């Protein structure tokens, strides 16, 4: 029989495993000179995207399907965590020629 302590430990492990996926990664996407690079990137739910805006312009990363809308002030880096899987096309609302794709695996 499992002791009470073991049960608690097992429960904690389980909660921990759910809260922090084992391979959560940080992926960088750079906006420079009105270009998003890389133009296509693969990630997983739970990964963090580090949005680096090297321009003097304000940019956004806006999902066409409404999944996210991240605002990047000029010369700033912001982060966001991917919550939903899917192939998400996104663009900058202020400079719609800036387009890219994020493939988020479950």
């Amino acid at each position, binding site marked *: 029989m499992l002791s009470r302590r073991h049960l608690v430990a097992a429960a904690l492990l389980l909660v921990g495993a759910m809260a922090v996926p084992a391979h959560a990664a940080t992926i960088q996407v750079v906006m420079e000179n*009105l270009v998003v690079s890389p133009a296509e990137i693969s990630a997983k739910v739970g990964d963090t995207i580090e949005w680096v805006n090297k321009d003097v312009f304000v940019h956004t990363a806006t999902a066409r399907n409404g999944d996210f809308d991240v605002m990047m002030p000029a010369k700033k880096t912001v982060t966001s965590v991917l919550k939903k899987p899917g192939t998400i096309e996104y663009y900058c609302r*202020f400079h719609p020629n800036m387009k890219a794709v994020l493939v988020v695996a479950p």
Partner: protein
Amino acid sequence: MMFVRLSAAIAALSLMSGAAMAQAAKPTDPQIAHIAYTAGVIDITAAKQAISKASNKDVKAFAQDMVRDHEAVNKQALDLVKKLNVTPQDNDTSKTLSKQASDKLAELAKLSGPAYDKAYVANEVAYHKAVNSALETQLIPSATNAELKGLLQTGLKIFQGHQQHAEHVAANLK
């Protein structure tokens, strides 16, 4: 001689006399900086008028984009001339641009409602077209300083986006 093309493109914006187009020499870097900065200020002024006068929300949002982007470019331009220790030099093209812009502003001020929205956006299309053509054929090729050239190239890229955006807004107003 190339300068005539620039002035001609700018003249296409509105009716004007040929007197201001007489300048024929290739612009110098201090003149180019002045022209580019002036062109930015003109669009910011027009956009501020639009923010207070426009009734269509897409037109208002476009105007806000213009203020934000052109102020960012002009701030870069000021930082650059300071760094290069260059004093922007006033010139006939800048003067012509300013004169035409204040006439246009007065003309637009008399309009209101959808008529204003339409006229503002139509002018933005024409204005960005003229400025982009001037940048492409005249200002960028004439710039000698690499950093100035780079800034103008970034400007061209962003203003081409503005032109498309303005054309899109204009199409939706019809």
